[in-house]
């Protein structure tokens, strides 16, 4: 199985069990650098897919929570190189497949060939790059795919129908359906029409669809589950880590299970 197919398989397995999949996001090295691997171990047991945020100085698609986490992580010395080194030395087999979420510039600096090779070595199965639209993605996508690593495409409520189809066909692992026009961490709840929008995406997507942005509660996950294969939880999980809470319990709670 190619690395990106592991992501798809993990999501489908959860859906076959009757539940929506959970994709959990954490910023690497936040709130502390030492806490990264322990938090990852717990989160990778509770979630189906883990998205590890590579901190960047200018996170233009992110709200205050992830901006703050990103800056603290940079101050803690976290970089792409650092993340690869920690993943290489981890002594637990992450049950959930891992993705990296990074703005383009850190990847560009690392070099695409080296990035793909290193990703395959340490078990990174895919990438989400919020400032890399389809038209600009060919060099990165080709380099990653030579190692079987997938590039996840995002669709949004503002994306016209023909473009949604193109993005779904180009995506690997899953399709990331942004629930709202806006940045991460919105507290407004899910917008009206999100069910109809997710249905439209799912209808044309050959791979699972996971919805993200603004998801914080079990009721939202369950509602998303009726219209997509999974939900992405980011800022709300970061806030749990910020409070020194239990991320495993929080994620199990989102599935409607008791903590």
């Amino acid at each position: 199985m190619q690395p990106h197919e592991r992501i798809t398989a993990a999501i489908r397995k959860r859906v076959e069990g009757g539940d929506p999949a959970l994709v959990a996001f954490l910023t690497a090295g936040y709130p502390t650098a030492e806490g990264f691997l322990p938090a990852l171990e717990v989160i990778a047991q509770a979630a189906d897919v883990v998205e590890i945020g590579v901190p960047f100085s200018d996170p233009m698609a992110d709200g205050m929570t992830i901006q703050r986490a990103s800056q603290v992580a940079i101050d803690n010395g976290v970089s792409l190189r650092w993340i690869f080194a920690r993943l290489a030395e981890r002594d637990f087999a992450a049950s959930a497949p891992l993705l990296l979420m990074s703005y383009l510039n850190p990847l560009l600096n690392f070099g695409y060939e080296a990035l793909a090779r290193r990703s395959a070595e340490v078990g990174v199965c895919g990438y989400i790059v919020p400032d890399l639209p389809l038209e600009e993605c060919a060099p990165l996508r080709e380099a990653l795919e030579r190692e079987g690593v997938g590039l996840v495409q995002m669709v949004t409520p503002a994306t016209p129908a023909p473009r949604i189809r193109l993005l779904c066909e180009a995506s690997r692992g899953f399709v990331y359906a942004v629930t709202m026009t806006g940045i991460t961490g919105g507290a407004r709840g899910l917008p009206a029409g999100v069910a109809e929008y997710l249905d439209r995406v799912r209808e044309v997507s050959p791979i699972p669809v996971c919805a993200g942005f603004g998801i914080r509660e079990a009721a939202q996950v369950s509602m998303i589950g009726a219209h997509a294969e999974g939900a992405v939880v980011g800022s709300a999980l970061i806030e749990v880590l910020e409070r020194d809470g239990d991320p495993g319990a929080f994620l199990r709670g989102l599935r409607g299970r008791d903590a």
Partner: protein
Amino acid sequence: MTIEFTEAEKARLLEDVIAGRVPDERGRFGPFGGRYVPETLVPALERLTEGVHRYLKDPDFLARFHHELATWVGRPTALTHAPNLGRAWGAQVWFKREDLAHTGAHKINNAIGQALLAKMLGAKRVIAETGAGQHGVASAAACARLGLPCTVYMGAVDVERQAPNVDRMRRLGATVHAVQSGDRTLRSAIDEALREWVSDPEGTYYLLGSVVGPHPYPYLVREMHAVIGREAREQMLKAEGALPDAVFACVGGGSNAIGLFHPMVADRDVQLIGVEAGGSGMGLGEHSATLSRGRPGVLQGSYTLLLQDDDGQVQGTHSISAGLDYPGVGPEHALLQQIGRVRYVSASDTEALDALNECCALEGILPALETAHAFAGARAWARDNPGRRLLIGLSGRGDKDMPTLAKHPLEARDAAA
């Protein structure tokens, strides 16, 4: 610094620039430029690109734009001979007087042009970012003129150091949003404006103030400012019967420089020299000299040169002038540098201050601190190249800088009475 062109490639790219084939339909200036934005903004940028192609060739739109430039902005701006400075430098010195444009800087050309475009595209509101406050003031004024609501994002550091402009924006009806995230200067203001635009890509028009950002902005903003170079070229020919030997402009994002340079790129005997902010030193974080010290990377929608560390984190910058305090630069400048058509140098905070004081004392004109960098670059060049004809882009007036200048008082000069 890391992109190497052969001489043949340089020559071909220069031909492309001169023939108007740059940027291409994907917004590429050679390898630079492009469109690196969240998916949410792609349809909005597509609509904007269609609007740009339609209206920038539409005679009715252009007539309205030129009418506003002539009757509201006050174009053409003057070409001023500067004989006193010329004697001091051993050169013939001319100024292109964008400080005389309405609101006191070149920024108004772009602001009124894009506000007209926003109106044609049916925008409900306009957002803009600002560094020195000049683009914020220009946007606020243009929006007031056209009846569009306007919100300006400005880094909290700049709100403090450019206080007079904050008050002007508010009086012109704009809402000023002090940005507390990131480095709290121009770069954070652009990040925040982009975030706001992502939240409402259909109703909001983002009036970007420099030749940076995703396609089509570097092209659109250049077209709005190219009037500076077209006028200056004609005025020089009329006044002197010849073009200048060298043309100087300050470069932060690079809008006034592109406006002045672009119409003279084909005049191969004219040296074009951009002057960046050398700040307080050449260590990381002490300057904003992107073209001299940067490496290629992606920031705020564009592949260009950036000040960044080995991990690709964008670096803090410093300049005494808020308008040059930016770690990126327009992609067209990156290309013009790499093909050797424009040379980029830097001037320090102190050199800029000295040049500002000299221009005040000898020519009776207070240039903006940004502009003063161009003067410092020109003065250094004149020293090495005596007896030549220089044209300096006097991009803005310095009244807004009085709070900063107050921290750098002149030696007591008043005669003891």
